[in-house]
C-alpha cells in the first residue's frame, strides 16, 4: 500500500536559527525554503535523499492560537514535545567529534549498543536527535 515516508515534521521556535542549525551545523541540506505567504515552508533532508523531508514548522497563529502556540513552545523547550529524529552515520565517533567542535549540545556520548554505536544531542530548541552507526 505505502511506498515510503515522504515528509515528517518537528516544531522549531525560530526558522532562521533552525536552518542554521540543521543545515550549517548538522550538515543536512535545504529541500525547500519557500514563503507561501501564509507560512514559511522550510524542509531539510539528508544530502542525496530528497525523498525524505523534515518540515521545520514554527508554531503560531492562525494554525494554532497564540495560547496553544505558547504551550507548544513550552513543551518543546522542556524536551516534552516528542518530536525527534534518528539519523544514521558511517562513523559515529568521527561525526560526534566534528559536531562537538561546532558547539553541538550532546546529551550522550557515542555508546556501543546491540544495534550499533549511537549518541544523542539536543537541537537549540530542545528537540531530541540521535545518530546511529548501525552494526554490520
Amino acid at each position, binding site marked *: 500500500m505505502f511506498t515510503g515516508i515522504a515528509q515528517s515534521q518537528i516544531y522549531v521556535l525560530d526558522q532562521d536559527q533552525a536552518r542554521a542549525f540543521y543545515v550549517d551545523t548538522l550538515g543536512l541540506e535545504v529541500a525547500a525554503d519557500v514563503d507561501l505567504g501564509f507560512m514559511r515552508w522550510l524542509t531539510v533532508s539528508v544530502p542525496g535523499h530528497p525523498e525524505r523531508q523534515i518540515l521545520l514548522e514554527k508554531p503560531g497563529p492562525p494554525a494554532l492560537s497564540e495560547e496553544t502556540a505558547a504551550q507548544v513552545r513550552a513543551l518543546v523547550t522542556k524536551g516534552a514535545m516528542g518530536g525527534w529524529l534518528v539519523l544514521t552515520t558511517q562513523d559515529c565517533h568521527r561525526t560526534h567529534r566534528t559536531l562537538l567542535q561546532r558547539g553541538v549540545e550532546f546529551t550522550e556520548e557515542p555508546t556501543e549498543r546491540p544495534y550499533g554505536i549511537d549518541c544523542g544531542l*539536543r537541537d537549540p530548541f530542545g528537540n531530541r536527535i540521535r545518530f546511529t552507526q548501525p552494526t554490520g
Partner: protein
Amino acid sequence: MNRALEDSNRRMLRVRDAMDRDHALPLDVPALARLAHVSPAHFARTFRATFGETPHRYLQRRRVERAMFLLRHTDRGVTDICFEVGFRSPGTFSRTFRDIVGRSPRAFRREGGALAVPTCFAMAWARPASGPSGERPREGEDGRAAPSGK
C-alpha cells in the same frame, strides 16, 4: 510570546540532561545551578516549577533507575552498585531505593527472574527459538513460522 519562560525551560532541560548523563558524579544543587547560570535557590524553585519535582528527587530517580538495571542484569554487589550509580553511602541508597521502588535492593533483585508459572512452562516458553534448519513453533492457522530471535 514568552521568551523568558522558554529560555528558562531550555536551561532547566540542559541541567536535567546533565543529570541523566552525569548521574554518577557528585552533583549538588550549587553545581547544577551553575550549569543553568542562576542562583541555587532560584534553580531549585525553577526546576520544580518546570518539571514538577525537585532536582534532588529527579537525580535520585535517575540513580535508582540505573541501580534497578544493574541489580537485575549484573551479578555485582549491592554496595558496589550503590557507589556506581552515584550514591555516597549504602544507607542512603537503601533508604532511597526502598522509598522509590517500595522494596529493598536485595528484595528487588530476588524477585527478578522469579516467574510465577510452573517451571516446565517457563522452560518451554523462555527457550530461544531454533535456527532456520530446526523446527519452529507454528504461528497462526496458515502455519507460517514465527520470526527467529523472538
